[in-house]
């Protein structure tokens, strides 16, 4: 009973020579984001930028994401209802699940009539998994996370496998994310990096108050202050040694969180070198990165890609980063920015003092990085994503609803 698909006549490979510029045809694209648009986050930004870029190219895009019905969302976002904060895979995320969400996913699929369905983080217990469960046809999945092999994910495999098998093309945002995926589920994935609007950073206006002088160089940190994984404690531990060598150095810290607590270990004299900027919007962040002499990324783990590094490189800020796998790859093993041992404040201080004293080295990093970041520019990245869409559409039907799963059960429940 199972082999019928093979016994049937194989669809003729469609070879439309005349429209091989497929990327320019207008597509109907459905994108599913599992995390709430009420909260800032890497996946949400990625989905937003991708959707806006594709719309700008003339495609029809609808994004399904959790959001309260009264939360203002961009016009292309379909709010799927309230998201609930729950702990999953070690951190709290706002997710949407349950029969009401499943019903909305089915309705969205039915009304959207999509050529391609693009699901982000397909294994998160939210809209993504529901969409995967309910849909058939050309489905693209993008995997953002890189985690060590987790027991919970392995335990969940029998539940996830049949859904995972529906994804016809798997994208990982980095080599690390690809490895995580292959370790857990086998198979393979193509690596397409996260995108950055390079020119928005390259063309940002520097802000004089944040620009360094030879006596008072400026160093930027970007990230949650109260999340140790982002590495602020490593930077603060390095501050005394840096100030001993270059007393005028100013540290500009961008990010939400309780600053006083994070800086409690510093003496008042050292504390004065740190300026807490709080949370800034995108344009201000670009100005900051455009202004400073060095951007430091002292993260200690859990980074799958390192988008801020690419943003800093786009803005022309020389980068000093911990030698995490993802960062080493973005910095081409030290060719595009300096690296120091993960979690080692002494190594950070030595490298930072060296960089601050060597303008030529900094200029060299900035110059090489400005060329290398072009591969992360949205037009380049979106083109690769479109190539994936075109590839999964060849020989496949449109996106539809799975009669085996999407049918009676959810209709009863919703």
């Amino acid at each position, binding site marked *: 009973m*199972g082999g019928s698909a093979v016994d049937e006549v194989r669809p003729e*490979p469609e070879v439309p020579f005349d429209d091989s510029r497929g990327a320019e045809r207008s597509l109907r694209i459905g994108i599913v984001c599992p995390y709430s648009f009420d909260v800032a986050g890497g996946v949400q930004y990625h989905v937003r930028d991708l959707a806006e870029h594709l719309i700008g190219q003339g495609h029809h895009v609808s994004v399904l994401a959790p959001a309260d019905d009264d939360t203002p969302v961009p016009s292309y976002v379909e709010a799927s209802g309230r998201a609930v904060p729950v702990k999953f895979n070690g951190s709290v995320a706002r997710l949407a699940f349950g029969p009401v969400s499943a019903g909305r996913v089915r309705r969205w699929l039915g009304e959207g009539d999509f050529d391609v369905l693009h699901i982000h983080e397909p294994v998160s217990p939210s809209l993504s998994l529901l969409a995967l469960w309910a849909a058939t046809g050309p489905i693209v999945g993008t995997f953002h996370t890189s985690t060590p092999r987790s027991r919970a994910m392995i335990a969940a495999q029998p539940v996830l496998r049949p859904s995972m098998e529906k994804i016809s093309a798997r994208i990982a945002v980095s080599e690390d994310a690809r490895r995580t995926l292959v370790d857990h589920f086998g198979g393979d994935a193509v690596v397409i990096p996260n995108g950055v609007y390079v020119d928005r950073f390259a063309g940002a206006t520097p802000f004089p108050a944040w620009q360094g002088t030879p006596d008072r160089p400026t160093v930027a940190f970007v990230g949650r202050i109260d999340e140790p994984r982002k590495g602020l404690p490593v930077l603060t531990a390095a501050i005394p040694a840096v100030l001993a060598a270059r007393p005028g150095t100013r540290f500009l810290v961008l990010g939400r969180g309780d600053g006083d607590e994070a800086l409690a270990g510093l003496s008042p004299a050292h504390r004065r070198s740190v300026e807490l900027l709080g949370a800034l919007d995108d344009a201000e962040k670009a100005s900051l990165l455009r202004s400073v002499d060095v951007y430091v990324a002292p993260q200690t783990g859990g980074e799958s890609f390192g988008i801020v590094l690419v943003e800093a490189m786009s803005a022309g800020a020389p980068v000093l980063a911990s030698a995490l796998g993802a960062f080493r790859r973005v910095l081409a093993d030290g060719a595009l920015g300096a690296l120091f041992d993960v979690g080692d404040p002494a190594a950070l201080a030595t490298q930072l003092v060296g960089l601050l004293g060597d303008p030529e080295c900094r200029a060299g990093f900035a110059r090489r990085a400005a060329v290398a970041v072009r591969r992360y*520019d949205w037009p380049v990245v979106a083109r690769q994503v479109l190539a994936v869409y075109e590839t999964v559409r060849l*020989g496949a039907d449109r996106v539809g609803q799975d009669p085996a799963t999407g049918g009676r059960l959810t209709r009863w429940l919703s």
Partner: protein
Amino acid sequence: MTDWVLGALALLLLAWYLSSSAGRLDRLHHRVESTRAALDGQLARRAAAALEIAHGLDPATGLLLTDAASQALAAGEERPPDVPVLEAVENDLTRALQAAFADPDDLRALRGDPMLGESLDLLAQACLRVQLARRFHNDAVATAQRVRRKRVVRWARLAGHAEWPQMVELDDTPPPGLVDPAPS
């Protein structure tokens, strides 16, 4: 009486399990088929793009490319649908492309040409898409193979007469200078 009900329930459960496993396998076979069709399509596009650009190159390089590309196109057209891709022919085209576009200076000159620049761009896209399509196909094959190795699938012969899915192994590395996004 209870035994009878329990037995019927167990049978029902078994039937449901078998039918859902069969459905899953069916879907996987379909995915293997459609990704194969996509790969065939992308290979044909690559050959067509190579043929197109061959007309604008110097005669020696042009002849080399035309030969390899038309061999690949002919092999694709004459091949019955269930015969695997002719890997040797596609490998030859890959090597011909690598040989034709080995020199970065030549490539830069070609990119500057208004007519050829566009064809070159199409060829670069086609080369990348072959890589994508092959990876997606082999991913589908690996998944299908794993499910078909499951005991219940073998014992209940859920795969029917379907052939054992095979990966496509060929060299699809594009010429290095061709696909790297050119720094502007």
